[in-house]
């Protein structure tokens, strides 16, 4: 092998190595984005306005969105951590959300059966076991883990609701509900009526 061929081979190897590194970094970032957040509920905690300022990608924004669903439909992409409210003209309003942990994610087609301002909250029994001093029922209000608004999904136990933990947006943290920061869930609540179609999508994992 002459010097020229060796040089070409070296360049190809470098490009391949760079490609592999980039792929590894990309996968790592993706994994990080989708990992579960080890955080417990913080009943009574009231976030500051600064905490509610989400990273740019999770703030509500108009986006192009290809779908066969009619305007007014809510489409939830669990893996993307986004909720889309379908608009006219191939567009949607996109909101950043927190989703269910592994094993608590689901897919389906439901309708909003009820809307509630400042919903109540009941800590799960395992949480009471860890923190016996917690009220078994906490009336709705600032600091309630259910946040400012709740949209009940069909006859399931799941809801689209607010949160007092803005940093959980973008993560898999819940028991199957979908959470938005309070400002965003109030915005969504004001845009959708009872009876709104909700499509929950969950991509197959390899």
């Amino acid at each position, binding site marked *: 092998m002459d010097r020229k061929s060796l040089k070409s081979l070296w360049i190809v190897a470098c490009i391949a190595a760079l490609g592999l590194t980039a792929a590894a970094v990309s996968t790592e970032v993706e994994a990080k984005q989708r990992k579960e957040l080890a955080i417990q509920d*913080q009943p009574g*905690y009231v976030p500051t306005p600064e905490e509610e300022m989400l990273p740019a990608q999770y703030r509500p924004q108009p986006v192009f969105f290809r779908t066969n669903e009619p305007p007014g439909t809510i489409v939830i992409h669990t893996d993307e951590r986004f909720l889309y409210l379908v608009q006219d003209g191939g567009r949607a309003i996109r909101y950043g959300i927190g989703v269910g942990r592994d094993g608590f994610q689901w897919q389906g087609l439901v309708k909003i059966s009820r809307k509630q301002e400042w919903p109540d909250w009941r800590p799960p029994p395992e949480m009471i076991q860890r923190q*016996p001093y917690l*009220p078994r029922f906490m009336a709705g209000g600032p600091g309630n883990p259910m946040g400012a608004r709740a949209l009940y999904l069909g006859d399931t136990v799941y809801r689209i609701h607010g949160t007092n933990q803005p940093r959980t947006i973008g993560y898999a943290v819940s028991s199957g509900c979908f959470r938005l920061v309070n400002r965003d869930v109030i915005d969504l609540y004001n845009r959708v009526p009872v009876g709104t179609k909700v499509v929950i999508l969950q991509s197959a994992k390899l």
Partner: protein
Amino acid sequence: MPRALPSRDVPSRHLVPSLSVLAAAAVWLAACTTTDIAGGGAAPTVVIPPGPPVVVDIALLPGKWGLASYREEKDRARTEAEAKRACGNPYVIGSGSQGGVLMHLPDQSQPTEVFIKTTPDGRSLIGPRGPVGMPQDRVVMYFQGGVLITEWLDPSARERYGTMMLVRCA
């Protein structure tokens, strides 16, 4: 960063002598009184929210209670109903070894023996040994007909948990 719930600190070694002194003082105090350790005119260390004078007989506290909380008066009635319903997973108040009862202080996973403390104007507080108006105290806002309503004196705990309502389980 969101503020984490305070965790229970482990006392460091250099605190042990101080704790021994406190324990001795506690034993001495226990010999003086059982349910009222108001400490006379000792000034509260935190502000006590306004409310009516309430008399609490500590002997009526041990047992099972439904526990719920609310923030606004409009939610009080339905919170009471929810507290009754919570008797399926009750909050248990035990009897202490020194005449007090075993209840949890804010954010503590283990109960502490607490006592009734009274202010000169007749307010009742439930808290650990020490002066009236410690941050770990809770002030009794109502105690009648098997319903006990308290508020934490610690502003952070009060903000996070609201008004605590206990309803005696049948």
